[in-house]
């Protein structure tokens, strides 16, 4: 769980930095997208790097979901009779939404791939013009896409906020000072990543990127 999670965090950071290229204009963004396909050349033949990455991501997704399912099943088995009075959340809200949050994020990722990688759900859907695809996605009349995107990213923020902290804890962070540090870095990662992802749709919506 922790290991695959940390891999996702690293991937998300790279993804976010790439996204921010949108502010550099259409050419730069499209160039960046094409460059992704060429990483590793000439050592690796074209697009190989991307496929390696996709493979690693898939393995991580499977590992992450598998661990989550095992934990969820154990949790269910550990409490066969539910409380009549629903227990009050006294700890962190983020921690208590990990499972539903994870499902929402998964659904979003599927939609996101169909939208911007495969292109079937995108109004432009031209794989060679990623910039146009993005701009078309977040057009003001398609506010529901922006809304769904925003919800998913906020959910991701919560997921990261607890996920990063929990990963550090699972890997043995143990002092009271370390705990404050871990909580702070989890919050920072969560805000940074969700913020970084959210600026794009809102930039499109407000016409900053067009």
């Amino acid at each position: 769980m922790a290991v695959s999670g940390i891999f996702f965090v690293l991937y998300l950071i790279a993804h976010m930095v790439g996204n921010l290229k949108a502010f550099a204009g259409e050419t730069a963004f499209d160039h960046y997208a094409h460059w992704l396909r060429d990483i590793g050349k000439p050592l690796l033949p074209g697009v190989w790097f991307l496929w390696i990455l996709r493979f690693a991501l898939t393995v991580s997704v499977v590992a992450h979901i598998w661990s989550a399912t095992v934990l969820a099943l154990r949790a269910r088995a550990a409490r066969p009779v539910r409380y009549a009075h629903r227990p009050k959340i006294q700890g962190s809200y983020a921690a208590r939404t990990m499972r539903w949050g994870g499902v929402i994020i998964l659904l979003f990722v599927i939609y996101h791939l169909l939208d911007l990688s495969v292109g079937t759900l995108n109004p432009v859907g031209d794989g060679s013009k990623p910039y146009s695809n993005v701009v078309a996605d977040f057009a003001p009349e398609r506010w529901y896409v922006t809304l769904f995107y925003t919800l998913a990213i906020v959910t991701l923020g919560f997921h990261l906020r607890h996920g990063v902290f929990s990963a550090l804890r699972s890997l043995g962070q143990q002092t009271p000072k370390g705990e404050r540090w871990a909580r702070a870095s989890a919050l920072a990662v969560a805000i940074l990543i969700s913020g970084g992802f959210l600026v794009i749709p809102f930039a499109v919506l407000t016409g900053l990127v067009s």
Partner: protein
Amino acid sequence: MNLTLRIWRQTGPEDKGRMVTYQVDDVSPDMSFLEMLDVLNERLILAGEDPVAFDHDCREGICGMCGMMINGMAHGPQRGTTACQLHMRQFSDGDTIDIEPWRAQAFPVIKDLVVNRGAFDKIIAAGGYITAPTGSAPEAHATPVAKADADAAFEAAACIGCGACVAACPNGSGMLFTAAKVTQLSLMPQGQPERYTRVIGMLDAHDEAGFGGCTNAGECTVACPKGIPLNTIGRLNRDFLTATKKAAGKPGS
């Protein structure tokens, strides 16, 4: 004040159980929560009804025998307080209070609010000790312990084994209980020789008892009447990772 209680009634392990509503009037704010239940039970007995069974003993918050979910909170709404030390002034006239037993596969209900917490004893028997047969001890001052370590060990050792952590955990995990003992013993120099076999033995016993896994949700430490800190679980994880890496028990490791 007058209260409505909805209490889990279950005649025995085989019974399905149900919430039953009782009216309790003239409750004094100076009563403890358990004294309020005593009053209810006295009335039930005189009315020929089976009194509510609940565990309790010292009634001063240290034996760990009492414990119940009160309005969905382990030991009730006051932080750092066991049910026996909770007083009725924490409630208001006209309140409805739901009272349920700890719910966990590893803590089967015996009757009403009484559960079997023997799984905790099994975890301790699987390694929650330092082997020091009587008579074999060296002079107490032979091994100084840094004050900071002794204080941190004490903080973890304050656990009363009541089970609130399990009851409050969304995963039904007993990790805080297990980690508290691992932390106490692994902070002391006397606990080093068995440090890595201990953590593996205790975690195996924990999983075998049917407790859920830990997701660091943090509900346990909030519910804990003794405030056992969550970072004890980090310490357990670290010892566990080292133990698995090291193949504990190898000479020189």
